[in-house]
């Protein structure tokens, strides 16, 4: 019996699409704002659309960030999406405030060598796994996902990088450490590929 996925509502991120996709794949998901409920959740998703500092501020409000850290430390798997993934790291060049530090990584601005590649990196791109992982077992090969971002994560440990994507050079598009998983792309906007990934996440035992 898998419990519901708690989709964290901290004021940023399009909850609608995430909930829609979970509904389509028959996974029970609900939005949560209450820190106590978050801290007690057994599986969490941190969405994110917007700027880093706005995200940090949203998490700091009402202790949502702290509650998420508590849930993660007690072993609950968490998936951070796009800005959500970046907020799990320590810091970002985009902002001044500190991230949650649940992933040993920081965020830097995308700077593709090729001037024809414009920022934000917006559109469908291939995601290439570096190694097998339960989270990617059901993913079709090759897989494409939708990206919309101007910053990328830089993991401190190469082992934490799960998959890369090419945008004028490779960058980390998925990373994982213990029970903390992050995806730079938007699974909820990536139809069949996203559905597969979210389904795997809902069943993942780290």
């Amino acid at each position, binding site marked *: 019996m898998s419990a519901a996925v708690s989709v964290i509502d901290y004021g940023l*991120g*399009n*909850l*609608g*699409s995430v909930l*829609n*996709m979970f509904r389509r794949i028959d996974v029970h998901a609900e939005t949560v704002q209450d820190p106590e409920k978050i801290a007690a959740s057994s599986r969490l998703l941190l969405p994110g*659309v*917007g*700027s880093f500092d*706005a995200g940090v501020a949203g998490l700091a409000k009402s202790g949502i960030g702290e509650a998420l850290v508590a849930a993660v430390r007690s072993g609950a798997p968490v998936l951070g999406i796009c*800005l959500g993934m970046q907020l799990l790291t320590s810091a970002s060049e985009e902002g001044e405030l500190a991230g949650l530090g649940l992933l040993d*990584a920081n965020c830097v601005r995308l*700077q*593709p060598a090729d001037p024809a*590649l*414009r*920022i*934000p*990196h*917006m*559109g*469908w*791109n*291939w995601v*290439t*796994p*570096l190694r097998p992982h339960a989270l990617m077992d059901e993913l079709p*090969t*090759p*897989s*494409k996902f*939708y990206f*919309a*971002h*101007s910053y*990328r994560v*830089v*993991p*401190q*440990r*190469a082992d934490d*990088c799960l*998959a*890369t*994507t*090419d*945008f*004028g*050079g*490779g*960058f*980390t598009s998925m990373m994982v450490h213990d029970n903390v998983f992050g995806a730079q792309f*938007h699974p909820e*906007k*990536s*139809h*069949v590929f*996203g*559905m597969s990934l979210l389904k795997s996440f809902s069943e993942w035992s780290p």
Partner: protein
Amino acid sequence: MRPRVIPVVLVSDRYVVKTTGFKKPVYVGDPINTVKLFNEKQADELFVLDIDATRTGRGIDFEFVEDVVSEAFMPVAYGGGVATLSQASRLFELGVEKVVIQDACFTRPGLITEMSRAYGAQAVVAAVDVGRRKFGGPAVIRHGHGPVETPPEAWAKKLQDLGAGEILLTSTLREGSRKGLDVDLVARVSSDLKVPLVVNGGADSLDDFAPAVKAGASAIAAGTMFTFHGPRRAVLIQYPSDAALYSAFGMSHDAPRTARSIDGSTERTPSV
């Protein structure tokens, strides 16, 4: 990365319509069904534009937007009557990926900056509609008000500098005509632009796509081409296969087999 190809769904009073040169809306069908079909065909993204919201002062039909977006599992950009930050916030909560700002570019350009700061530049699309001046020369058109002094390339750059993460450039004269995309306009507007440019208006076939990208477009938007079929313009929602799209851009459909080098690893290979 393959350039995006984006169907444009124009909506009027909860119906999908198609216009020619922004006039003479013709009923096409039910928006929910249209979006479902584009979703089945795995369209890259969708632009859903309410052509009445600003003109009639009706404002945004949020219930309708929610219904439409719930059928789309790819990014949806919504435009039509977006004039405040709180409207944008509500749209994002419903699942809209980006908002398209048009009239507000003239009446409240500061809104672009506010939205960009709050939600990120990638969430804000500035729509630039270009027609012709009375005596030749392309001109930015403000609907209901006529042409504007500022040349299209300067106008687009201004909106970019205000914080728009993407420019939707529509040729009003070619819209609905299938006469081909305005490649010259694309070259002109994209030359000084750093953010992605989406060109719209006049696309007739896959053959039109590569030249527009070569001229500087980052993505192609089309309405008529994906909505009508044949000489009698029967309604048929269509979208090319991924393989056909890669081929149209002269790109290989093969995904990279091995992961590219990244920084932060012991290899220290230069990357992005």
